[in-house]
């Protein structure tokens, strides 16, 4: 365990150095991605500007929701998305088999040797928007609320990484799993809006089988003191437990898929 932890900075360092060879491209990429999200966020701001609120959420509240959504996603996805999106190629071309014989756990190697610093633009935009939103909202901060807020971001990021791991691991059995990311991003798209604007069956789905309601809406509703459909008073605890719970599920799924992996190329 300690040996693995000592290896991680080296794995990350090698990957970061390769990105830094193309420094200008990296920085332009960060700015471009921030502009990409900014265009959509500006559109949402225009809707709220015209209609005053969206499902009872004002623009500063929506800005907090969007910033939380982007930050938790970026933190979770930087150790998982590209790495596990490309699993089916690794399996078809046999390169995953080479990872299996390395003296380090395959998940650890995949996640950290491919740590994606291209999410810098996401994180910068999210933090900037979040600071503006929190300053505009004038929340009654206490140490407990601040601790909850930080823990909720961590839990939501864990949820993202766990779901992406589960989708990527499925390729070990099905060979193809990339199309499942389309389903993930379908619900991810919904998760940037207040859950209460959707019909009840979709709200239930977003809290149970496709739990991306926990990605931003539930923690933000808790912080803002807004009612959370279905969960009610359980929302604060549930939003903190969902990340670790899905990490346990993802670890079990990953191990089961590895045990049943038979190869598909080489």
């Amino acid at each position, binding site marked *: 365990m300690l040996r693995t932890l000592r290896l991680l900075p080296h794995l990350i360092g090698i990957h970061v150095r390769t990105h830094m060879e193309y420094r200008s*491209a990296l920085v332009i990429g960060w700015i471009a991605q921030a502009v990409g999200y900014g265009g959509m966020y500006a559109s949402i701001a225009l809707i709220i500007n015209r209609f005053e609120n969206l499902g009872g959420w004002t623009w500063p509240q929506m800005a907090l929701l969007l910033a939380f959504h982007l930050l938790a996603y970026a933190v979770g996805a930087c150790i998982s998305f590209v790495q596990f999106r490309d699993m089916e190629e690794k399996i078809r071309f046999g390169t995953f088999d080479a990872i299996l014989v390395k003296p380090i756990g395959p998940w650890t190697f995949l996640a950290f040797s491919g740590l994606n610093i291209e999410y810098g633009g996401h994180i910068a935009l999210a933090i900037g928007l979040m600071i503006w939103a929190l300053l505009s909202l004038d929340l009654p901060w206490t140490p407990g609320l601040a601790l909850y807020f930080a823990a909720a971001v961590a839990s939501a990021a864990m949820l993202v990484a766990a779901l992406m791991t589960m989708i990527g691991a499925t390729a070990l059995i099905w060979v193809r799993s990339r199309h499942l990311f*389309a389903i993930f991003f379908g619900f991810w798209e919904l998760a940037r809006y207040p859950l209460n604007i959707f019909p009840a069956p979709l709200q239930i789905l977003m809290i149970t089988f496709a739990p991306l309601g926990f990605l931003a809406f539930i923690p933000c509703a808790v912080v803002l003191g807004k009612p959370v459909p279905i969960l009610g008073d359980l929302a604060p605890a549930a939003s903190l437990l969902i990340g670790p719970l899905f990490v346990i599920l993802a670890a079990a799924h990953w191990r089961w898929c590895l045990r049943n992996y038979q190869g598909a190329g080489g």
Partner: protein
Amino acid sequence: MKVSAYPAFTVTAFLSRLVYRNQVWSGVFGELVATFAFIAVWTAAFSGSRNVDGVTLPDMVTYVLIAGPLLNWNTTRYIREVGDSIRNGDVTVFLLKPLHYPALLFFNQLGNNAFEQLTITLPVAVIVALTVGLLPPASPAHGLLFLAFWAVSWCMLFLIATLTGLLAFWLLTAFSLEWFLRGIMALASGAVVPLWFMPGALAALLGHLPFAWVSYYPSAVYLGKLDAPTSGVYLLIGLSWLAALAALAGWLWSRARHRLVVQGG
């Protein structure tokens, strides 16, 4: 190469998409989710109001379908394919053949678009029509004008995306360009928020840029928000923009093909 030979690329592009059938149902799912998300957003925005600025909720549901899946402004796949072919050197294969690369891209995209309209937009439109309801064109004249605007929209999007993709000959990557365009299109095409809900100055500015002909004007014409003579004027302006962008693309291509630096292949 004769122009009559190019439609074969359209057929090939259509048939090659048939091979990846699992992308169809994930594509339908993705579009359905996005469409119903925006319908929910407008339903929440209109809560209690039957009419805002002369626009009703059924207008906006129809607008979401036309400006979303039908006139799909998402060019991610296309620009990344062009960028990848420049980065990995595949583009040289096309340069060695007796064909015009931008024309090849045009006919290829036509096949891809026909495939997506049939397998993704049509099922999504049927589901939305049956569950939420869709409005017919405001009048037969608006319906006919919409068809002309639809063609202009498709050509405009193709030219904007191609101009963006061709810049990869200089930058060697289309990744950042595609993200920049995504942000601009989300706001300036009017696909997410129609120009009639934007502040006056912003709407006036965006209403004169070519992006508005991709989503806003075709949808507004279909819903009868522009009368027939005004629609005709905007159609002419759109055609002028098309001519200008086509000339720019032709000029850019003439410069780009002398500038190719292949990184691999």
